[in-house]
């Protein structure tokens, strides 16, 4: 296939437009009103960029290429469409890891080609001048360095994200901790850097890398990603995923430099910076520092050292609970991960609407990390049609709890656990919580004695003013609705 000579210019122009659309799209994505359009625009730019790449001069292996694209796109598309909303965080982790792996693989191809070309040059110079020109020729010291750095962070993002995926998916229930772990991890990291630096130094001097060093570098980078992520608890995974997202962005930018592709440089760098900031914002929302997330061994089990909780669980039946709320003046509904699991948001909103009709003042109290991803509850309540002005942030509603007659907790646990305030030995000590315990009465909907994400007991459930309404979230909410309706009938 011979292409017209102006083709590369057209390709460059499309890449440029794609880069603009990415930035534009991301900007729109930062407000709920314009977000949907944003992703569509960015998607258009992406599709155009991918299509024109086929028309770059000197592109071979088209069969392999199309096959790999079709397989990758179809599988991801189906998985992404089918997966339940509750599994979104691990999906993001998975796809992000794939991007990191791709960036690392690109770097690997370039480094191997550099090596092969140099070997060919020194041993059999006149045989393959073309290979030498395309590869070894254009990798200067800067390009080589960035290729190595890109491979390192891309590989870490790859295996790290896969571990994060496995943990959130529930495939690896336990955190994997052993003594001196940090030192072992540090050793792996240093070994990877040393191997890489030695190979790099050879490359900059114009020699081929030793294959052994190169392979060791790849392997150690992959292992480090695993080792670094294993000890981090599942509750911290969204922050970690966001960090790996930034990593992938940087790796893409660096490999884009190696390939002299501006669109990759810009898109990668934008994501790198955006992801870095987003990581910090997320850590802040969970009241943690990034260092604490990565090395803090949060949620380290430690049940042994925890204080004992006195008191008993006092059940209540749905009708009594409905009556209690029907005659209350103010009710606060506190949803948590259990509401997401039970998909109870529609029933709860139906119940809340009935209360509002009776003149009860109803608010939804949302903890920033309720559920399994930041903003999880907002997404679900939005889906059910709850208007924004009934939804209150933690900071706004906390001072109001003493005036609230009934706090209805549905499937929340850790985010209302007063232990975070009182018990220094608790793994969630220091996390800001919703002050539900201060409400006059508390009703808790959950299925049984199941623990929350952090795996600890909750003193709230044993408090004098708390009653337990056992059952699946959706079923219990349905019973509450029925209870209210019989009251009116």
């Amino acid at each position, binding site marked *: 296939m011979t292409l017209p000579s102006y083709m590369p210019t057209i390709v460059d122009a499309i890449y440029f437009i794609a880069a603009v659309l990415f930035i534009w799209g991301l900007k729109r994505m930062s407000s709920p009103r314009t977000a949907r359009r944003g992703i569509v625009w960015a998607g258009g730019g992406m599709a155009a960029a991918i299509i024109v790449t086929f028309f770059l001069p000197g592109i071979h292996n088209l069969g392999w290429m199309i096959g790999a694209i079709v397989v990758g796109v179809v599988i991801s598309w189906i998985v992404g469409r089918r997966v339940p909303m509750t599994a979104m965080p691990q999906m993001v982790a998975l796809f992000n890891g794939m991007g990191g792996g791709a960036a690392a*693989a690109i770097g690997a*191809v370039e480094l191997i080609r550099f090596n092969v070309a140099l070997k060919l040059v020194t041993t059999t110079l006149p045989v393959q001048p073309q290979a030498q020109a395309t590869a070894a020729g254009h990798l200067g010291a800067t390009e080589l360095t960035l290729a190595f750095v890109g491979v390192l962070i891309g590989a870490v993002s790859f295996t790290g994200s896969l571990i994060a995926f496995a943990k959130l998916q529930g495939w690896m229930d336990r955190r994997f901790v052993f003594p001196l772990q940090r030192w072992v991890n540090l050793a792996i990291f240093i070994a990877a850097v040393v191997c890489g630096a030695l190979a790099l130094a050879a490359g900059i001097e114009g020699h081929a890398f030793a294959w052994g060093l190169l392979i060791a570098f790849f392997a150690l980078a992959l292992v480090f990603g695993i080792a670094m992520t294993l000890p981090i608890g599942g509750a911290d995974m969204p922050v970690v995923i966001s960090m790996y997202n930034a990593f992938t962005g940087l790796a893409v930018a660096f490999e884009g430099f190696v390939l002299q592709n501006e669109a990759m440089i810009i898109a990668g*760098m934008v994501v790198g910076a955006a992801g870095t900031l987003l990581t910090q914002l997320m850590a802040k929302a969970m009241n943690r520092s990034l260092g604490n997330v990565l090395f803090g061994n949060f949620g380290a089990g430690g049940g042994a050292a925890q204080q004992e909780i006195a008191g008993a669980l006092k059940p209540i039946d749905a009708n009594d609970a409905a009556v209690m709320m029907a005659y209350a003046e103010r009710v606060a509904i506190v949803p948590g991960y259990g509401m997401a699991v039970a998909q109870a948001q529609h029933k709860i909103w139906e119940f809340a609407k009935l209360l509002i009709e009776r003149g009860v003042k109803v608010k939804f109290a949302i903890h920033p990390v309720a559920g399994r991803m930041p903003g999880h509850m907002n997404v679900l309540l939005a889906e059910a049609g709850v208007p924004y002005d009934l939804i209150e942030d933690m900071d706004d509603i906390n001072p109001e709890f003493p005036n609230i007659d009934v706090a209805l907790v549905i499937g929340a646990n850790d985010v209302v656990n007063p232990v975070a305030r009182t018990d220094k030995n608790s793994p969630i000590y220091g996390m800001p919580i919703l002050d539900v315990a201060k409400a006059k009465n508390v009703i808790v909907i959950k299925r049984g004695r199941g623990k929350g994400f952090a795996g600890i007991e909750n003193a709230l459930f044993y408090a004098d003013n708390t009653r337990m309404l056992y059952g699946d979230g959706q079923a219990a909410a349905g019973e509450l609705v029925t209870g209210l309706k019989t009251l009116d009938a």
Partner: protein
Amino acid sequence: MITGFLALYIFMLAAFTGYEIISRVPVILHTPLMSGSNFVHGIVLVGAMVALGHARTSIEIAIGVVAVLLAAGNVAGGYVVTERMLEMFKTSKSEKSANK
């Protein structure tokens, strides 16, 4: 040809741009935005195609195919997931106005 300083300028400006985009985003949009930027770095597919397109030895082709496969997964999955999440926000908006 993008040389050292030019690359630095582009890195710097792009980083600034990314930073500005994210600052002042409400918590509620953190996950969709993470997913959206995850999709954007799917542009790595273009690089993977170039790497595979120029691959000659079979080891290069093998790694190149892996790169394209992974990158394609990143692009498609990132888009679908982001779109699904943002769709829900749209619903909320129209329902909200209907409810008010």
